[in-house]
């Protein structure tokens, strides 16, 4: 603690020259540190340093949060840090059959508690594979509608040795123009470009939405937000461990709409124009299966809300006009048949009152029902041997 002698203390160590030298040295060190940081780009490596699964339990779903102070969770772009904070980063048990559940916000579980998600209900089922291994499901859903995001996450998650992949999808994730729209995708431009090149995806690697970073952006100063996010993710780990809360649950929310305008357009397309062949990113689905390699993938056409309200003869729900969704389903089966993709279609399997604030978000009961529908099919799906 500083004492009360600062005025009396002889000023010998603190001459103007001394201070100037300190300032110059500090400035040089700061510049050197920033340059070294930019050159080495240690963020991905730093993302692998995690207190989760060591000091705190791993999160049952990926970090995502728009209200960190209330959800003890936050959205960040560091894929390594996201995955290392997840329970999937735990060592795989010898008798474990590891199932990754990829997908969008319905898989992640918006408005659902961690033990009410699809993955949680599948885990609660305690399913055992025919070879005797216990099936353990990991929720790797992320609340963004884009197949490219799922491909990118799968690419990063393959290191965790999955034996089976469950991939619920819906039409809203398919439009090609939406593939590079998600911030998580845009902030991982290098990973996305690598995937575009590796799987010859019909996406533009020079798309301006992919964020290219300058040298300055990569310095310590430029990365301060990313570094703060890494630190916050670790600190929120303590709050998560203490409370088991990773999402803010509003007391009320707006229910998905049941009545619609007499409008049958979808993503700028009219029924008469139909669904152009290249409008949906089927090449990303192909790349997903290719990336999974020997690990089997079960594609699930996830349940959607089917309205019986005003103009429901034109639209199934707020997102989907009937013609577009029907065309998508038809294409999905054609593609699946042609490529040998296993598909489970449960689009209309959940009662309409089990949907919450969007055409794909389920209540806990809906989520449990979906798990009950998927489980028997999963048990019949051949599984990988692991790596």
């Amino acid at each position, binding site marked *: 603690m500083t004492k009360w002698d600062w005025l009396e203390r002889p*000023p010998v160590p603190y001459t103007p020259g001394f201070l100037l030298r300190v300032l110059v040295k500090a400035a040089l060190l700061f510049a050197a540190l920033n340059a070294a940081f930019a050159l080495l780009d240690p963020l991905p490596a730093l993302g692998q340093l995690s207190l989760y699964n060591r000091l705190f339990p791993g999160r049952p779903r990926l970090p995502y949060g728009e209200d960190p102070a209330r959800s003890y969770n936050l959205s960040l772009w560091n894929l390594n840090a996201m995955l290392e904070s997840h329970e999937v980063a735990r060592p795989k048990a010898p008798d474990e059959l590891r199932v990754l559940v990829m997908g969008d916000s319905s898989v992640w579980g918006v408005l659902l508690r961690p033990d009410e998600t699809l993955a949680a209900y599948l885990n609660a089922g305690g399913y055992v594979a025919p070879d005797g291994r216990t099936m353990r499901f990991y929720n790797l859903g992320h609340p963004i509608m884009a197949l490219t995001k799922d491909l990118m996450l799968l690419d990063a998650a393959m290191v965790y040795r999955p034996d089976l992949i469950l991939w619920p999808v819906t039409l809203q994730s398919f439009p090609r123009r939406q593939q590079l729209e998600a911030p998580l995708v845009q902030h991982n431009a290098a990973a996305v470009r690598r995937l575009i090149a590796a799987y010859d995806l019909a996406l533009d690697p020079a798309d301006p939405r992919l964020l290219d970073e300058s040298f300055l952006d990569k310095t310590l100063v430029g990365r301060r937000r990313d570094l703060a996010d890494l630190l916050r993710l670790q600190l*929120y780990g303590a709050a998560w461990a*203490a409370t088991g809360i990773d999402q803010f649950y509003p007391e009320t929310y707006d229910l998905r709409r049941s009545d619609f305008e007499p409008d049958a357009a979808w993503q700028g397309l009219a029924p008469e124009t139909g669904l152009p062949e290249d409008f949906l990113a089927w090449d990303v689905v192909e790349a997903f299966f290719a990336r999974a390699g020997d690990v089997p993938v079960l594609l699930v056409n996830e349940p959607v809300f089917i309205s019986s309200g005003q103009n429901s003869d034109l639209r199934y729900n707020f997102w989907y006009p009937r013609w577009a969704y029907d065309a998508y389903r038809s294409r999905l089966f054609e593609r699946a048949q042609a490529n040998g993709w296993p598909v489970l279609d449960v689009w209309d399997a959940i009662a309409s009152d089990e949907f919450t604030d969007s055409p794909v978000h389920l209540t806990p009961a809906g989520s449990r029902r979906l798990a009950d529908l998927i489980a028997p099919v999963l048990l019949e799906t051949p599984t990988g041997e692991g790596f």
Partner: protein
Amino acid sequence: MQLSHIVIFAAGGLIFAGFCPSRLRGWLLMAASVVALYWLQPTLTIFYLDFALPTITLTLAVALWWLTRPPETPALDGDDRLALALLAGLVLALSATRYLAPELRPTASRAPDVPPVALALLLLGLAGWLISRAIRARHGRLTAALIALVGLFIILKTPPLASGLAAALRGLTGQNQALAAPLDLEWLGFSYIAFRFIHTVRERQMGKLPALSLREYVTYIIFFPAITAGPIDRAERFIKDDRALLPAGENPAARLLTAPRLAEAGGRIGMGLFKKFVIADSLALLALSAANAGQAQSAGALWLLLYAYAFRLFFDFSGYTDIAIGLGILLGFKLPENFDRPYLKNNLAAFWQSWHITLSNWARFYVFSPLSRALLKRKVKAQSAVFIAQMATMLIIGLWHGVSGGFIVWGIWHGLGLFVHKWWSDRTRKWYLSLNQKPRLKTAWTAAGVFITFQFVTLGWVWFALPLESAWPVFWKLFGMTP
């Protein structure tokens, strides 16, 4: 204070120390403190209140300066008239900033127009003159001022009373009274300002307050580095530094921008910024709060949140104190220390001599000492007198933070703790002194004392951090029990 405020204050301090002519330093400090008073005032929902409250602070400062002047002091001298004119001119100039673009205004929101402000100042002056004429007896005036200050403090710190006052003000401005809340009256630094006012009034009553010019008094009350989070300096100490700002020929300390001072100030400000914006703000993410207290799943989880709160509170407050002291050094003032490693003290009395030291000292001077003396004079047993005085002192410290059940229990918690400590140490003093012959045992005993004191203080924070109704269940849950 936000980071932007601190950076601007530090830059201003550097310019002040390096370039301000010594004869203008005192005046510039007062002017800067006045502007900072309006600049730091939070925005309020009641129309013009965020302009009115700093103006009332200045009005109170002028009034209390007048009241606390030594009895033999003649009428205003030249410097006092200049200070009065400068204060009025600054208030009018600040109200005139309403015509500037919003981003250039130094006030929390758009200030009222100049003519009504000028009229209000005139009326305030007239009212002050009339009141001073009405209450002739000097002692009576000081006592009345003291009662008024305490009354105002109680109103502001008692949520139902503050809401009532806010509703009344909303009624005057034609705003929705149903929305009245204590936060409507968030008065920048009032807790500190009020205790400085009370200090000067009590010192005048005891005849110990030195003669202060209006400029000196106002600067002492609203010195901008210490306006938001203290420390609560003593006037006679503050004034020594203020007078050392005089022309260089009269005082060698007047050379402000020296390398030692710059290094010391930079070190303290840097340390304060690190404590507040890195450590405390990080710990805030997991510190105990009304929101997460009920969500904790186990006693262990609650302890984790509580420890985070304890350290967050320390680093936040001591960080601000470091910044205030560093800015003070830059401006030529050595503000008193407020913290001295409090969580490493091995008993509760030592903790209170090292936690918020200036508030503890204030309470000791103006509550504990006079009360215990009065009780002893009335032949109350020494032990009872100490108990009553300690409880009263800790209750006052608790209530200083706010009139609520939680702060009352927190005050009682510490009052009882101090009493038990005294009782225990009175009975073990000889044994403790004998430990000097056994250094290992003494070290172990000290370590145990540090641990127990820290646990006691940390448990006490439950009452401090949470409303009373949520604090009880949390307190029991910490021990694995349900109430």
